[in-house]
């Protein structure tokens, strides 16, 4: 795993995500700033109010992708710790779908690295979501997966 910290999470999980746990994993005595992104299922979509959101993942490939994204982040910024987790399965409105936490000496890198990581998660990982609205299912329109 090279420079990847052993205790950090980089997984796709079917269980509830605890943002506090992910945040705790990036604690570091040499970090002055930590930025955490938490994605949650939003009530409103383009076509109405959502009852639930079903996340589907190609988990093995997505977990490889999380490790690749961490390596990209470490290539670009001198961050201390990175931890990332994405849900699969059926989520209710308000539930946590993804958490990215990055700690670094200074805050600028933590903000940039965290934002980069979630952008890459959304565009380069094999993850899909399907809105449940009034008993109907609709795959949320995305973009062709990028390398």
């Amino acid at each position, binding site marked *: 795993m090279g420079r990847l910290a052993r205790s950090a999470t980089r997984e796709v999980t079917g269980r509830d995500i605890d943002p506090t746990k992910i945040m705790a994993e990036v604690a570091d005595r040499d970090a002055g700033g930590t930025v955490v992104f938490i994605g949650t299922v939003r009530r409103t979509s383009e076509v109405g109010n959502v009852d639930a959101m079903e996340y589907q993942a*190609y988990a093995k*490939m997505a977990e490889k992708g999380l490790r690749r994204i961490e390596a990209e982040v470490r290539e670009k910024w001198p961050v201390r710790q990175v931890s990332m987790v*994405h849900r699969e399965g059926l989520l209710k409105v308000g539930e946590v779908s993804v958490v990215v936490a990055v700690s670094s000496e200074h805050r600028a890198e933590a903000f940039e690295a965290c934002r980069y990581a979630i952008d890459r998660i959304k565009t380069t990982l094999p993850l899909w979501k399907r809105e449940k609205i009034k008993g109907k299912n609709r795959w949320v329109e995305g973009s062709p997966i990028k390398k």
Partner: protein
Amino acid sequence: MGSVTVLYFAGARDAVGKKREVVRLDGLSTAGDFLDRLLRDYPRLRPMKATIRLSVNQEVVDASAPVADGDEIGVLPPVAGG
């Protein structure tokens, strides 16, 4: 000869009606040729032709990438995680 395991996701899974299957290569050797065969075999995949991407062993590949016996191929509609 040889065969590959194909995994379908999201709208592609709905269109094909299965999550996974083992497919014989029958001499096909590139991802592009393999996708063409899937589109021929599964007409309901054809509307996704422009936006579907393939992975080979969990890496997104171009049409010219090789496919070989034992590979795991993912059929990936546009992604929308997060």
